[in-house]
């Protein structure tokens, strides 16, 4: 397997297609997707509902197989897990306390207790829920559960992070706070992230680039660079002319697809 340092690329997708078969009916979810994501890039994907964003992510996560084409994730390390996903729904295990949830990936990989202690407390601290480590999920709010989910993903130290609308179910305040927290963790780790969202504001705020997908069958419609300086804060960006132009430009592009449905 090639090393991503030399090519500068982390994810290379060529001619990817996905068709779902349901009896005799075939649904073309994704078609002919070509995409390269740079090492350490934060890529956001937006597009109309049902355009196959989540399917693309599930293929990257290995939870779904592609019908055609190929996906390559270039490894930096032979020991780290290839990818870890943060799901949209509440996906932390109700039967584990916060700590055990956050440590899940490490335990599945047989990481030592000392390393688990250090890694998990580091990331729980980062998302501000270390003091709740002995709580069960039923004792947590939706925002706190999603923090656990993010800590679990980062603690696993994957080659790439996949996020499927992780903040979609949160209220507006929690969403903004978690977006900033996510960026602050990411800026210290610079993992390659593929982040799916419905929110154009979110995509521009978080991403290095924003990929707009077409309506089904999903293709890459356009990719917009977001040359906003980091670290970013919501307050500063709201008044930034470039931020407003980018969101407007992306919204026009998405709107055409939604209208076309």
């Amino acid at each position, binding site marked *: 397997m090639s090393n991503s340092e030399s090519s500068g690329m982390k994810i290379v997708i060529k001619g990817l297609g996905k068709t779902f078969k349901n009896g005799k009916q075939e649904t073309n979810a994704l078609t002919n997707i070509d995409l390269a994501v740079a090492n350490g890039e934060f890529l956001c994907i937006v597009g109309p509902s049902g355009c196959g964003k989540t399917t693309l992510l599930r293929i990257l996560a290995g939870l779904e197989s592609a019908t055609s084409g190929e996906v390559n994730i270039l490894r930096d390390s032979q020991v780290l897990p290839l990818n*870890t*996903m943060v*799901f949209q*729904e509440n*996906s932390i295990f109700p039967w584990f306390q916060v700590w055990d949830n956050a440590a899940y990936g490490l*335990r599945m990989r047989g990481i030592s207790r000392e390393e688990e202690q250090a890694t998990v407390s580091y990331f729980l601290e980062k998302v501000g829920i270390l003091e709740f480590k002995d709580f069960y999920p*039923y004792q947590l709010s939706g925002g706190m559960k999603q923090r656990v989910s993010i800590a679990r993903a980062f603690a696993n130290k994957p080659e790439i992070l996949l996020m499927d609308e992780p903040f979609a179910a949160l209220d507006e305040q929690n969403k903004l706070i978690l977006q900033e927290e996510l960026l602050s963790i990411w800026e210290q780790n610079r993992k390659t992230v593929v982040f799916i969202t419905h929110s154009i504001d979110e995509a521009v705020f978080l991403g290095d680039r924003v990929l707009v997908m077409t309506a089904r069958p999903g293709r890459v419609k356009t990719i917009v660079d977001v040359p906003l300086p980091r670290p970013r804060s919501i307050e500063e960006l709201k008044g930034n002319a470039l931020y407003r132009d980018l969101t407007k430009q992306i919204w026009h592009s998405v709107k055409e697809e939604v209208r076309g449905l």
Partner: protein
Amino acid sequence: MMEERAGQNKKHLVISIMSPILVLVIWEVFSRLSVVDSRFLPPPTRVFVALISTIADGVLFIHMKATLFRVLAGFFCGAVPAVIIGIIMGLAGSVRAFMRPLIIISYPVPKIALFPVVMLFFGLGDFSNVLIVSVGVFFPVLYNTLGGVTGIHRIYWDVAANFSAKGVKLFLTVALPGALPSIFTGLKLGIGMSLITTVVTEYVGAREGLGFMIWFSWQVFSVGEMFVGIGVISVIGFVLTTLVEKLERIVIPWKA
């Protein structure tokens, strides 16, 4: 607010104790006034006297010991394989497909109807009783375990797959904890089934046990002792179910 609720709980506890007492009082009065035939339904005070005398001469203890052994042995011998097979069936579609017809065919057969067959093979004795009891316990536990595993939300399997959880780790972190609430429902039904089946097998296939005590008392028209047997069975059922519920709260601390 909390105090109000605590007061409410206390009130409900008092009401809960009152209802059985009320039934006993009405029973006593009706029996004494001969509204009901006191030969068939002796007043609770006379049943109590019979209880004391069966305790005093050690007879009750012998029967209780025999029944408790069969109830518990049958429960464990039925519930343990049911949980294991139920989880395997829940995890492996091919095993499920293989086992389904066998289970669907055998489930509706009243287990007690197999008792004569079992006695043909193994004769009169604890082994036959326990075998039938465990078969009776097996089904409700199996069905609930299977339902528990197949009912685990898909998202948790996705998470486990994404974190490469396999084999024993997958079993211990998703299948077992995810199915536990449902398994406990099965265990509670299994306790009831174990008691019922034990007593019925003791009617015909035992020289000791509360079922035998009830049946024998009926034959010699010792109605007081008959009611002692019935009462003790219901107390055993209550205690065992409460124990399983206590265990459930310890094993499943994540339920609000």
